[in-house]
């Protein structure tokens, strides 16, 4: 059964996931090409000076990359389910409704996670070529909330897309939009260090939010 669920979800998101991952790889490659360019033309001293004393974040172009990933995968995965109320087909499968949804959700989240891990791995690897470990660690602490934001966006979009009523969708979108800014606020490198665990837990809690939209759909809200 789970194989069939994974198969269906893969068919829906595969091109979006592959396209997003490739673009992300290119983006990270371009980021470090820029870093290399900076070292070559501005000199290492100036780069270090701007990072250490002027608060420059060489990784800031990555800020919205995970968010875009979360949005893309969630829409690719859940929008087809709402066209013509196709989610009824899923609910009619001989499997618990919540179990089916959570399996779909888990597949989407794991796909997103694999993509994110690849990005973080590439980022760490390239960073270590140019910067000391301490600076790389601080950079990773700074980018982690952005990746958590990607997961939070994925979970929120699922909640919004599956919600049967437009006014609820609107409310969720407004609240969700404000919620996501928590992950994208601080411009200071490493500032999110103490908060990262909490931000992760918050995002994890959101993972079951779509069950509420599904419950409302099954009760006949429209």
């Amino acid at each position, binding site marked *: *059964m789970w*194989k*069939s669920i994974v*198969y*269906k979800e893969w*068919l*829906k998101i595969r091109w979006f996931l592959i396209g997003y991952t490739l673009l992300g790889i290119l983006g990270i490659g371009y980021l470090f090409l820029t870093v290399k360019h900076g070292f070559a033309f501005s000199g290492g001293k100036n780069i270090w000076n701007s990072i250490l004393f002027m608060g420059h974040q060489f990784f800031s172009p990555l800020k919205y990359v995970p968010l875009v990933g979360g949005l893309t995968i969630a829409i690719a995965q859940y929008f*087809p389910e709402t*066209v*013509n*109320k*196709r989610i*009824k*087909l899923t*609910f*009619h*499968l*001989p*499997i*618990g409704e919540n179990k089916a949804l959570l399996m779909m959700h888990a597949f989407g989240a794991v796909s997103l996670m694999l993509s994110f891990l690849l990005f973080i791995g590439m980022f760490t690897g390239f960073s270590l070529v140019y910067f000391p470990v301490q600076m790389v660690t601080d950079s990773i602490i700074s980018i982690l909330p952005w990746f958590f934001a990607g997961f939070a966006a994925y979970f929120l979009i699922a909640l919004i897309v599956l919600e049967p009523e437009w006014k609820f969708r609107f409310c969720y979108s407004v609240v969700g939009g404000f919620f996501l800014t928590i992950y994208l606020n601080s411009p200071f490198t490493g500032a999110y260090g103490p908060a990262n665990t909490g931000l992760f837990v918050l995002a994890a809690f959101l993972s079951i939010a779509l069950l509420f939209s599904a419950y409302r*759909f*099954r*009760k*006949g809200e429209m």
Partner: protein
Amino acid sequence: MNNVIECNNLTHYYGKKQVYENLNFQVSEGSILGLLGKNGTGKTTTINILNGFLQPRSGECLIFGENTQHLSPRTKARIGFLIEGHIQYSFMNIRQIEKFYSGFYPNWKPAPFWELMSKLNVTPTQKISTMSCGQRSQVALGLILAQDPDLLILDDFSMGLDPGYRRLFIDYLREYAKAENKTIFTTSHIIQDMERLIDDLLIIDFDGVLAQTSVNEFMGSFKRFDFVPENDKTDLKKAPFVVNLDKVKNKVELYTYSSESIVKKYLDDNNITVSNFAQVKMGLEDAFIGLTGKY
């Protein structure tokens, strides 16, 4: 005979608008029952309640003895469901969709699916989204047949189909249901299609159930008499046997469950002189309109 579906005191409202109140009906094992009603009388509402997509205001529906609001996976596996418009996963091709569904049903029988697909002019890798409505209907039907359910719930199966596909759909379905002793609960807005398919009917209107019986019994007992009254002073609608009455220019179309002799006696007793009195043979659609009215 066991009841596969049993709905008791079903009441539902959309906001303050009542759809129906205390609706009761049963579908017995092996029968093909058509739910007929005008737009807005609650056909799709009933289908949604049966599939657990809508919680009624009160009352309950049982399928194989289980409340439809909490169907177990085992019971869901015994129900084939056709969504209005033959909706399926249109991002899949027919090979993919067969592979997808086969993973859920231990008794999956791919042969009927591929047999139906062979009649279509499509390739196994053609996406469902690129198919015509008629072809999609065959895909949806093929998947239900491969699932081999004990109960089929079909929501407006005629929608969007041309006459050829409608005929193909009905003939295939009826033959299958009768050969395998399957139970079917269906709605359709094309009554002629229902006439070819169903054994029993349930006609609902805004006031509740108008008829629940076998098609043969209904067609045998429900009659239409046409005549032209010469002295039209009595309000015939008040006659106790009149179910519905329609006037087209001078001609009266009277619908009743009573016999010709009772109608004629009433006319005589009330000194209503009529000409061209005749019983008109009806199809199911005529009878449905006669019972529910044109408006």
